[in-house]
């Protein structure tokens, strides 16, 4: 610490200590981690009036932790600029911090501390203003990126507006969702025309009309705010940026709010839901064909998945539905019962052989919960049926991939996955190994159709997992494959590595292609995740390359980031490994 220059006078030193001591929750964090006052003064020449504090960072699954990092909640964008310019001059990284509801270490590397020269910008407390413009069609919402999805959807609902695609947890910040092409589960149902209402079936990023990013101004060599219109080529890299940029505000196209119904089905066997096309009329693809919005949650070692099917209805409540006036209508999945908690403890302690019973208990709780809470058939404004995951739900880790293909291939994709997954699980079970104790989750979305943005020559998000492959214009869906398990479950990374290799080998052109789901687990090795260099260099790069384009999307995005953030202020080791 001797090489750190502290330019404070004694009075300033004492004042700083007082400020630090005034930080209630953060102070307890500092004390508990044994920080001393010397560490607390590691920010030389920090802008006046801005008082950062030390705060713990822990991501959703607890796999990325930092005991205490410099953090600040700016009151406006100008304060962020001050910090960013200070960071440039002092060789610090600036990382936006939302709800940390992410798996991959895009924000920070696991285990770093204050010596890592990282400052977190907590966008939630103040950067959450929202403004709605309904004067023209389609309507627009301009929001600061720290706003939570739930608050954004509430504001939209008040103006009779809503979204078709949104992730299930309402706590996520808008900025976090856009950074990693957050998505829901929706393609058009038969005879549906929500596009004409201003909706889209790709990721939320595809709804961006314009955005404001923090970029370097070459003339002044200072970071400034710059607004990008969606039609501008450079905007493409900021629509989905993985944390390689800092977006302060976005304007999204939004559609008329819709009344939606969500029905649960839990009696159809996985062998039919994921069976070959000819096996059953009650297949996943048939449900998608009929209703467009489907999700499957298949608990381990059970034979019947929990299927949710959403449908757009008219203003009249379907007779059999229960009207819901707020989100999170599956409380049984958001709160752990004692039995489940005990089993989890057992599994975490290494006794994974109870996994089959654990899966059955999860199914039992779901079935019983749907009955008890009368949640089989719910209806209400879109937000109230599209948000259904609370922070109190089971925190697990997961791998994530999206298979891009034609809609007519949905069942084939799922059947192949189902067959291989079963084979692999059985292979492990024969050795009495149970690496996977959470469900398999399946969702289907549309791809990033630029035409969905009305009245604008929109360009696609370069780094979106849902970006269309220009060689295969007939591909129109993304099939999301997620496998969940408790962090640290023995052999889980090995299992993930095996299935990752299979997924990338199996879904190949011209039938399909795979991209990683940025926010989740990928690049597995036998004992690690996000560290498989060969995978990152080959598979991920290849997945953003089209034979008919001169350069890959990753290279294109990288050039744009280099232009606007040559100091790599907005970066992290994982982002650097992607070479963007």
């Amino acid at each position, binding site marked *: 610490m001797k090489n750190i220059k502290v330019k404070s006078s004694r009075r300033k030193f004492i004042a700083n200590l007082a400020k630090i001591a005034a930080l209630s929750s953060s102070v307890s964090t500092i004390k508990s981690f044994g920080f001393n006052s010397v560490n607390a003064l590691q920010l030389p020449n920090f802008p006046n009036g801005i008082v950062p504090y030390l705060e713990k960072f822990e991501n959703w699954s607890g796999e990325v932790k930092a005991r205490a990092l410099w953090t600040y909640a700016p009151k406006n964008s100008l304060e962020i600029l001050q910090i960013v310019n200070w960071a440039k001059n002092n060789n610090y990284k600036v990382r936006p911090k939302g709800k940390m509801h992410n798996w991959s270490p895009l924000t920070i590397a696991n285990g770093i501390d204050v010596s890592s020269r990282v400052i977190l910008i907590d966008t939630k407390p103040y950067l959450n203003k929202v403004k709605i413009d309904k004067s023209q069609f389609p309507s627009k919402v301009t929001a600061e990126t720290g706003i939570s999805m739930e608050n954004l959807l509430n504001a939209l609902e008040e103006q009779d507006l809503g979204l078709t695609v949104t992730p299930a947890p309402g706590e996520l910040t808008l900025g976090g969702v856009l950074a990693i092409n957050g998505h829901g589960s929706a393609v058009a149902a038969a005879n549906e025309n929500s596009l004409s209402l201003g909706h889209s079936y790709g990721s939320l990023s595809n709804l961006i009309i314009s955005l404001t990013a923090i970029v370097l101004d070459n003339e002044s060599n200072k970071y400034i705010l710059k607004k990008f219109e969606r039609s501008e080529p450079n905007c493409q890299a900021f629509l989905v940026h993985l944390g390689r940029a800092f977006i302060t505000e976005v304007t999204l196209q939004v559609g008329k709010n819709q009344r939606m119904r969500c029905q649960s*089905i839990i009696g159809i066997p996985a062998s039919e839901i994921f069976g070959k096309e000819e096996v059953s009329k*009650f297949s996943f693809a048939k449900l998608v064909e009929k209703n467009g919005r489907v999700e499957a949650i298949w608990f381990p070692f059970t034979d019947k998945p929990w299927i949710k099917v959403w449908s757009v209805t008219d203003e009249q409540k379907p007779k059999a539905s229960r009207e819901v006036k707020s989100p999170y209508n599956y409380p049984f999945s958001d709160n752990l019962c004692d039995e489940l908690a005990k089993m989890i403890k057992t599994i975490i302690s290494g006794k994974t052989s109870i996994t089959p019973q654990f899966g059955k208990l999860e199914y039992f709780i779901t*079935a019983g919960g749907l009955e008890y809470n009368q949640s089989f058939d719910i209806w209400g404004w879109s937000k109230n049926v599209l948000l259904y995951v609370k922070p109190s739900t089971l925190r697990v880790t997961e791998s994530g991939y999206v298979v891009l293909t034609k809609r007519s291939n949905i069942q084939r994709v799922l059947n192949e996955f189902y067959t291989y997954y079963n084979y692999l699980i059985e292979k492990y079970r024969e050795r009495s190994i149970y690496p996977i104790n959470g469900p398999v989750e399946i969702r289907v979305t549309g791809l990033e159709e630029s035409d969905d943005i009305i009245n604008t020559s929109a360009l696609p998000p370069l780094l979106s997992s849902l970006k269309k492959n220009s060689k295969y214009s007939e591909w129109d869906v993304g099939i999301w494959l997620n496998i969940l398990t408790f962090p640290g479950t023995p052999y889980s990374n090995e299992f993930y590595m095996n299935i990752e290799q299979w997924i990338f080998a199996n879904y190949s052109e011209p039938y399909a292609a795979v991209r990683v789901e940025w926010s989740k687990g990928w690049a597995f090795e036998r004992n690690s995740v996000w560290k498989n260099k060969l995978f990152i260099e080959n598979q991920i790069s290849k997945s953003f390359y089209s034979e008919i384009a001169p350069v890959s999307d990753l290279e294109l995005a990288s050039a744009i980031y280099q232009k606007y953030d040559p100091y790599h202020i907005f970066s992290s080791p994982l982002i650097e490994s992607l070479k963007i």
Partner: protein
Amino acid sequence: MFKIFILIIFNLFLIFPSYSNSTNEYNNQENGKSSIRVDLLFGAGYMMWVCTHSGNSCSSAFTITNGTAIEVEKGDTFYVGIAALPRICDFYKVTNSNSLAVISYWGTVFKPNFNIFGDETIQFLNRETTYNLIAGCQQFQGKYNEKY
């Protein structure tokens, strides 16, 4: 009490419909027919069967371990019979072609509940009950054929 118990056993195991067609018949052709699947959810341990063609063509009995699927045409009425005492007969009408629906039963044999996924394809008409186990649900079929 004992007599009632005997009657229930009798009802469940002896007076079960002997006529049946095979379960899980699927036809993937767009033939104007709709597929209806009947599932028993967790907690619903009763036996049931599904009858179409004026009650003359019934599925095999099935329980919690399996569902059954039937092919029906728009305008058909059919019933789901539940082997309780009194016998429970839920009548449905098919209102859509080339579609699918899932009826999920849950709850106890004494108070079975159900959800319908695909209520634009089938419409629940009414629940009948009868102690006449010989005539069974079929005795009501004529009434629904005429009325709907």
